[in-house]
């Protein structure tokens, strides 16, 4: 006879009741990316909005080709093109109100420019004259973030702070598919959901993290599915359909502003160009794949819709092209001027109050510059 038998039949006590805190069903994304252009939903879209999206797409494409050309002329150290992803970036900027904040990553210059930042200042980081050229407060655009996903918790913190202050401000944070593997992505989404912060995460899934394809990045059914684990809704959208991205993002922004908490949006798109001008994309992908995505071009999709519904004519298309050319010409002209740099400014913004050590180093650099100038002066004097 065992000890248990001596005490009578063993009846384990049942565990305390457990149930999931949220029904996961409404949080799950659709099986197919949401589309508007070429579907019945397009009829409900605001024609003015579609025209504005179109103008920005055309400008964005031209910005990408111009900036890439500037790398070949040595005017930009590097440029990560977003050709093919213009719809995501333009819709991101247009889904926000003026008081909202945008948190871009390094590939999101188009979204930054569409927010109103000077096209040249948006390139300061990539030109190399300073890390962030623009004042983040002017257009409520955080500096372009180079480390992946680290700007996401900033967006959460800012949105949380705004809500604590009673401001109905929303933060929209942009990240790529590769960035979703970073720890900061997880921590940001978790904080946002726990705090019910008014923030929207937009993942631009462009297929590659430099050369690594999505299949090697994640085993999740989709990146939008990740939302469920945090307790926030996930939405899947065709990232080349500007109207669809705008609608989904606008819904998410409205939801956040109304106190409904965060949303994770995955926009399925494709990076037509290489990672940057320094990358050789032929090593990791074939022409057929690129061709298939070229046939699903965000500008052509929207132009076809607008033309079919007679919302624009050839003159309007030409006007958009002309406007983009003027922007490019201005960008080219201003980028071809050498920026005026003051080396002494290196010491100006390390601390609110310069330390004794930095004052010493400042004096050292000043002496070096003076000696340089004196030497050049003597050289010129000798030549005369």
């Amino acid at each position, binding site marked *: 006879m065992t000890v248990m038998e001596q005490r009578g039949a063993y009846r384990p006590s049942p565990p305390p009741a457990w149930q999931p805190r949220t029904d996961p069903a409404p949080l799950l994304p659709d099986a197919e990316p949401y589309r508007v252009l070429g579907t019945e939903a397009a009829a409900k879209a605001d024609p003015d909005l579609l025209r504005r999206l179109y103008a920005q797409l055309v400008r964005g494409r031209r910005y990408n080709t111009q900036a890439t050309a500037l790398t070949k002329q040595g005017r930009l150290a590097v440029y990560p093109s977003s050709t093919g992803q213009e719809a995501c970036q333009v819709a991101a900027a247009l889904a926000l109100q003026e008081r909202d904040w945008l948190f871009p990553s390094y590939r999101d210059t188009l979204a930054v420019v569409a927010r109103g930042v000077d096209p040249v200042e948006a390139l300061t980081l990539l030109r190399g004259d*300073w890390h962030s050229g623009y004042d983040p407060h002017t257009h409520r655009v955080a500096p372009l973030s180079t480390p992946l996903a680290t700007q996401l918790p900033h967006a959460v*913190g800012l949105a949380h702070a705004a809500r604590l202050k009673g401001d109905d401000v929303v933060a929209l944070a942009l990240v790529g598919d590769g960035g979703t593997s970073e720890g900061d992505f997880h921590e940001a989404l978790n904080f946002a959901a726990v705090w019910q912060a008014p923030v929207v995460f937009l993942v631009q899934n462009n297929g590659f993290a430099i050369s690594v394809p999505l299949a090697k990045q994640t085993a999740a059914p989709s990146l939008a599915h990740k939302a469920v684990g945090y307790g926030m809704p996930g939405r899947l959208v065709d990232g080349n359909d500007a109207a669809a991205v705008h609608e989904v993002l606008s819904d998410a922004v409205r939801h956040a502003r109304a106190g409904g908490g965060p949303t994770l949006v995955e926009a399925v798109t494709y990076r037509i160009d290489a990672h940057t001008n320094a990358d050789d994309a032929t090593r990791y992908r074939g022409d057929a794949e690129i061709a298939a995505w070229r046939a699903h071009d965000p500008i052509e999709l929207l132009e076809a819709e607008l033309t079919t519904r007679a919302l624009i004519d050839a003159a309007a298309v030409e006007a958009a092209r002309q406007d983009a050319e003027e922007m490019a010409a201005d960008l080219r002209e201003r980028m071809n001027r050498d920026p005026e740099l003051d080396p002494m400014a290196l010491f100006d913004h390390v601390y609110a109050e310069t330390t004794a050590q930095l004052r010493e180093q400042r004096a050292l650099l000043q002496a070096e510059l003076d000696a340089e100038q004196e030497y050049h002066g003597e050289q010129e004097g000798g030549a005369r």
Partner: protein
Amino acid sequence: MTTVAVKPATMAQALTRALRDAMAADPTVHVMGEDVGALGGVFRVTDGLAKEFGEDRCTDTPLAEAGILGTAVGMAMYGLRPVVEMQFDAFAYPAFEQLISHVSRMRNRTRGRMPLPITVRVPYGGGIGGVEHHSDSSEAYYMATPGLHVVTPATVADAYGLLRQAIASDDPVVFLEPKRLYWAKDSWNPEHPTEVEPIGRAVVRRPGRSATLITYGPSVPVCLEAAEAARAEGWDLEVIDLRSLVPFDDETVCAAVRRTGRAVVVHESTGFGGPGGEIAARITERCFHHLEAPVLRVAGFDLPYPPPMLERHHLPGVDRILDAVARLQWEAEG
């Protein structure tokens, strides 16, 4: 004799008082971290703050150091002054990327347009019998990052005064709290806290003529004890408490070394790549002709922080300091 009733207070109590006074004085000050709310922090430094100021101002966050500091960045961008707690020294490492890639350089990156007034409280150092990852001295990592202030109090008055200054600073401050001094008592009047020297200033805790001990944080009381013990040998040791590792007070340190001609740097952190190497180099560059002996370092050994049952062999103690001082004498005679 009339005396103000000045009760003994612990460093932990002074830190709590500093947080409370800062929150009362400035509604933008927010305390956040793991366990800072109902529990009052594992060292009880945030005790009572959530009750007094509400959970929106003293917030229990999810357990995620990068997330704690990363969200604090966004809060600072929107005009708040976050004070984040990292619970233990080695727990702060997941937040290093936020600290180094963003917190330290946001002012610089934005040409001064986006300063981040964040205080990062990090309990650090050994001597409390903590198991692995609970006793690291990580100050050298922070010191190597431009854009951060690195501050560490050794007295109850400094704990209060320096934390108030750190929170009021428009720059990010890594505020290193010597765990082992949390319960060290000193007479201190919380109703009328005395003014202390500003961040960036070192102070002479004990004047002396034979040699200068340069130290900070948990090693300050050890050096004072060593100085007392040294009297028996006829040595009159000076003890300098740095208080702030960044900015560094070259002036006070060099003035002292020029007076005594002999210097020993004492800290718990490793010697190799540790703060002492930098301090010794600065002294040598500036005071070489006043030196009677090489600048010596008494530091923790160059090994991962040892298990608690062996830590007393690792930590710089009075004997090891006195041995170093003896070597200074020998070097002078030799």
